């Protein structure tokens, strides 16, 4: 017997069930298809404007910084200002997200944009969030050429553009969004749910920001 079959046989014997239990199998498959939602906290169930407000508040509580803008074409200037204020070089790393590419980066003077995955030498990276989650101030990032996952972790400063319209009340709504986008049961290689900059509280329980991931998470909320 293969180890796989041996383990499954032990599990079935312990549960006193049979492999050919079709009724049970149908029930399980139906539950996987339906994916019932459980208890959803009331906290994030708000009209859009207040939801965005809650998202920003929760993110700030986690020591992310938040900047709100009306229009997408204002983003490059805001990024440049963020870097200048921290004495960082006028350079960012970003992927090929068409929404980022459509922004007027060329209008910035002496500013360099490096495309593609991060190699660990970038001070700052810019990504576009798939969604925000108001309940916890979390951003949802999808892997791929548009927004390579390495940009979420390697630069010291991670700047994330979030559309206000993409902010959901709760985690389940964000999951439903991913499912609609990719189709049922299909996922991108990586979904990163990010809540604040990286941290450690492990040396005598003292909180320090900037562990292996970014030291700073800057959210630019547009709309």
């Amino acid at each position, binding site marked *: 017997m*293969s180890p796989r079959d041996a383990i499954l046989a032990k599990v079935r014997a312990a549960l006193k069930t049979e492999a050919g239990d079709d009724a049970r199998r149908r029930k399980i498959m139906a539950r996987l298809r339906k994916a019932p939602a459980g208890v959803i906290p009331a906290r994030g169930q708000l009209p859009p404007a207040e939801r965005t407000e809650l998202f920003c508040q929760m993110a700030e509580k986690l020591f992310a910084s938040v900047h709100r803008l009306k229009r997408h074409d204002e983003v490059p200037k805001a990024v440049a200002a963020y870097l200048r204020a921290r004495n960082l070089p006028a350079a960012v790393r970003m992927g090929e997200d068409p929404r980022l590419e459509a922004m007027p980066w060329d209008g910035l003077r002496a500013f360099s944009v490096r495309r593609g995955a991060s190699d660990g030498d970038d001070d700052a990276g810019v990504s576009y969030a798939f969604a925000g989650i108001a309940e916890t101030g979390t951003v949802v990032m999808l892997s791929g050429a548009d927004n390579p996952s390495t940009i979420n972790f390697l630069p010291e400063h991670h700047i994330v553009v979030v559309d206000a319209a993409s902010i959901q009340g709760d985690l389940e709504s964000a999951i439903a969004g991913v499912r609609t986008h990719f189709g049922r049961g299909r996922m991108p290689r990586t979904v990163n749910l990010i809540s604040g900059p990286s941290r450690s509280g492990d040396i005598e329980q003292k909180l320090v920001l900037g562990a292996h991931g970014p030291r700073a998470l800057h959210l630019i909320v547009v709309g």
Partner: protein
Amino acid sequence: MRITSPAFKENARLALADPQLQQALGNVRSGFIDKRETAVDALPEFEALRDSARAIKDHALQNLDLYLEAYEAKVLASGGHVHWAETAEDARNIILGICRSAGARTVTKGKSMITEEIALNEFLEENGIRPVETDLVEYIIQLRREHPSHIIAPAVHVTQAQVEADFRRVHDHLPVARDLSEPEALLGEARRVLRSKYFEADVGITGANFLVAETGSSVIVTNEGNGDLTQILGKVHVVVASIEKIVPTLEDTAQILRVLARSATGQDMSVYTTVSTGPRRWGDPDGPAEYHVVIIDNGRSAMLGSDFQDMLRCIRCGACMNHCPVYHAVGGHAYGWVYPGPMGAVLTPSLVGVDKAGHLPNASTFCGRCESVCPMKIPLPRMMRHWREREFERALNPAAARYGLKAWAFLARRPALYQAVTATGMRLLSLLGGRKRRLSWLPLGGSWTKHREFPAPEGSTFLRQMKARARP
């Protein structure tokens, strides 16, 4: 890892006498408890979520065979590989095989209790592969050649000064005069040292908090981001997880995530929750070229359908040990194996055998705090009692304790005799108490009175008093 659980008493005695450990344990007593309480109070739905999380895990365990099959099919469909390991040894060999075929010299590791359980690091080292722990504290533990003393804060027993000393000893290529007096400096140094390791490693090994049957995904939860760098930058990502990590859907995962971080560190959500599905896709600029999952039984299937099935709901949040007076006093190492605290007292005998776990089920005051804070509502005290019963049945506890219990049982079944004996005993103790009304030494209870005095009994026995009051 060598099991020293049978030496729990001796381990505990040493722990109580260790001033540095006692100082470090003070941090558990204060920090974790307050943080959890604040986070729980801020979420009115917390209790309802606990019930929801428990129901999900019970359902998944009750249909574990089918969910495992569904999960496997999805991993294969997304281009990943699934390996099944009945024992720790099988798992070690499978992982070594994957590392060998990737030509790996160095592997990076995210924090994972299961790889501690199967003693993976020692095994890889023996076979010429260097495992590098990337979680800050696991890294410290590895430098100290110790084992974790807590499941979510493995170096909770180490003080800042000890970390500084270790870094000075091991990072000897750095200037001696550097300032390492603040946690920031220590963290910064570890970050810089470990950065290059991620890029050097051929294989990245992580555990999983959840395996999602709906999508074939593994989910990890971290605050540092090390688990993510481990799995994105290695050419091969190996996920090591035991069979009970299965949950049906992403929605189910969301329910349990809400109680996990709050119970563990008092966060609403850990900084990084990462859902990984298969290897790098066509057109992806980063991510591993291969994705392997090693699914391990190592004793879990034997817990299914037994008195200990509920333990398989455990999500390794650490709340039970954070709230345990015994853990507060002796720390995690005294428990003598990978899993400390109340969850360890139940899990260790299940996984290594009650004969090897020694006193662990007795390392409890039965105060019940562990069960009351356990997000998965696992009846930990009841299960420790089950182990005590089995210990007694199999004559594993010491002769004196067995005779004592037998004598007591003999008396308890004969009420008249019981009352006569206790009444006489009481009068005797009362006499011995003298004018001070306190005893500084108790027959058969010498170790109790070594640290405090025993108040001498006064008046008559409880039963007599009750009878007297019952009369009209």
